[in-house]
């Protein structure tokens, strides 16, 4: 798309008009967007086209429309973060750093997208803005909390979007919507202008329909050269995560991991003995920091919160400090296990979710004969990895008559280029990919 703009086979203005036409056609059914910015987008596109006409180069994302989760600051717009307690905040004075970086590379922001309130959820069923529908089945969840951004890309309304991932909020919707997403190494991408949730765990990153688009988007955001595939992917030492990550998942999620492992001819398996406790620690840190962050608003405006979020924040605000400190200290144990794993393996493979997209409004699901809470359990395999702060690329496994499932490619800190290259190789092998665009309208 950017190449066509730079080669003058199309224009940024035309791409932006196409994006708004698709949004007009598809978004009433999907509810992915919470606001669109036609005036700003057309002005940006006109500048890009003028730059090209003058012989300049607007950048590697020239004219590519993109969306951002509505927790990213947009100049002149109130940053809602999916909440109404933010509705009276002043408009943002400047764009979030990641939006600035995308636009500096020639991309065009067209709107902001739906999310779980304050990023505290996995299904994007928002009490204020409605539920985002999964483009593959409108009765089902797009995942969360960056569900609007994932649905916008999965449906083809935009080729790129931005999300945040604290406990799995990029990886879960990537999996359920059947697209690619990356949670970078903690601290790698700038959080400036992104509404915070859990300072100890928050990350931000992009979604795309292809591994190549994801790699290009990540390179722009990270300010690194776009890396070609690693020279020797065949020599990568890869293991499938066993134990915690092989229990409590339904066949379609297991099949997705089987497919990736078969394509890579992986036979090695590795167990992270503390994975369950890592998830517990991430859950505890999230509740404590989230509860503390919103304590003032909970005191005076409790009725304005999404009830699904409010009661969890209150519980978190009430916990003894000892529980939180112990959870933070536990990171040392899990970090050591990850270091040991990455001394032997370059990449670990695990399911992204334990099941495909649940129905909107679905409360429970039966796994191994046990009735389990759908909303919190969908992040059971992303949440432990969160605690380690290591990078993960979520890759989609799709088939014509099945709902998408996702697989996590997990590497040591700073290994984004390797993971993105592996995702591209899996796509080339036909093991993963977004497949055909779902028919929405």
């Amino acid at each position: 798309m950017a190449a066509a703009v730079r080669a003058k086979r199309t224009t940024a203005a035309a791409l932006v008009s196409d994006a708004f036409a698709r949004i007009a056609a598809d978004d009433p059914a999907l509810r992915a967007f919470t606001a669109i910015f036609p005036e700003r987008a057309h002005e940006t596109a006109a500048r890009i086209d003028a730059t090209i006409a003058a012989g300049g180069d607007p950048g590697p994302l020239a004219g590519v429309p993109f969306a951002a989760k509505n927790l990213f600051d947009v100049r002149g717009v109130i940053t809602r973060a999916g909440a109404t307690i933010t509705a009276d905040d002043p408009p943002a004075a400047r764009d979030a750093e990641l939006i600035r970086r995308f636009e500096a590379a020639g991309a065009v922001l067209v709107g902001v997208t739906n999310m779980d309130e304050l990023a505290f959820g996995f299904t994007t069923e928002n009490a204020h803005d409605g539920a985002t529908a999964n483009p593959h089945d409108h009765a089902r969840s797009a995942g969360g909390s960056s569900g609007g951004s994932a649905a916008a890309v999965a449906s083809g309304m935009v080729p790129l979007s931005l999300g945040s991932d604290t406990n799995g909020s990029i990886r879960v919707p990537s999996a359920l919507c059947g697209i690619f997403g990356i949670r970078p190494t903690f601290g790698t991408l700038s959080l400036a202008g992104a509404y915070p949730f859990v300072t100890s765990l928050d990350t931000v990153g992009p979604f795309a329909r292809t591994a190549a688009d994801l790699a290009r988007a990540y390179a722009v955001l990270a300010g690194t050269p776009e890396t070609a595939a690693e020279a020797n992917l065949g020599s990568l030492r890869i293991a499938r995560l066993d134990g915690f990550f092989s229990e409590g998942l339904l066949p379609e999620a297991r099949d997705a991991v089987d497919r990736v492992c078969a394509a890579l001819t992986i036979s090695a398996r590795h167990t992270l003995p503390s994975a369950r406790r890592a998830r517990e620690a991430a859950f505890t840190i999230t509740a404590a920091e989230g509860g503390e962050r919103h304590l003032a608003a909970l005191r005076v405006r409790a009725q304005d919160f999404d009830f699904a979020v409010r009661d969890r924040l209150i519980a978190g605000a009430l916990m003894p400090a000892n529980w939180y400190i112990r959870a933070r200290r536990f990171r040392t144990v899990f970090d050591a296990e990850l270091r040991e794993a990455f001394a032997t393996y370059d990449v670990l493979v695990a399911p992204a979710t334990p099941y495909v997209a649940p129905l909107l409004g679905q409360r429970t699901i039966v796994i191994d004969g046990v009735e389990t809470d759908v909303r919190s359990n969908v992040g059971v395999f992303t949440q432990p990895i969160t605690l380690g702060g290591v990078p993960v690329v979520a890759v989609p496994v799709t088939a014509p008559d099945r709902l998408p499932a996702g697989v996590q490619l997990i590497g040591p800190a700073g290994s984004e280029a390797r993971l993105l290259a592996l995702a591209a190789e899996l796509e080339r092998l036909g093991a993963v990919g977004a497949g055909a665009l779902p028919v929405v309208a």
Partner: protein
Amino acid sequence: MEHDDRTVARLAIEAVAAQLALPLERADRAVVLAVYERLAAYAADIASADLPRDADA
């Protein structure tokens, strides 16, 4: 007087909520209690792990 775990959790929630001026009457107490009990169970499980003495908080 001894209390069962649920009663202890309920009393703790009510006491700390009062201390922090959090309006439990505007929340679903059953949900708050369920999440608090889950956090307590997690804390107990994490506490049973061996942590290195120099674990950084």
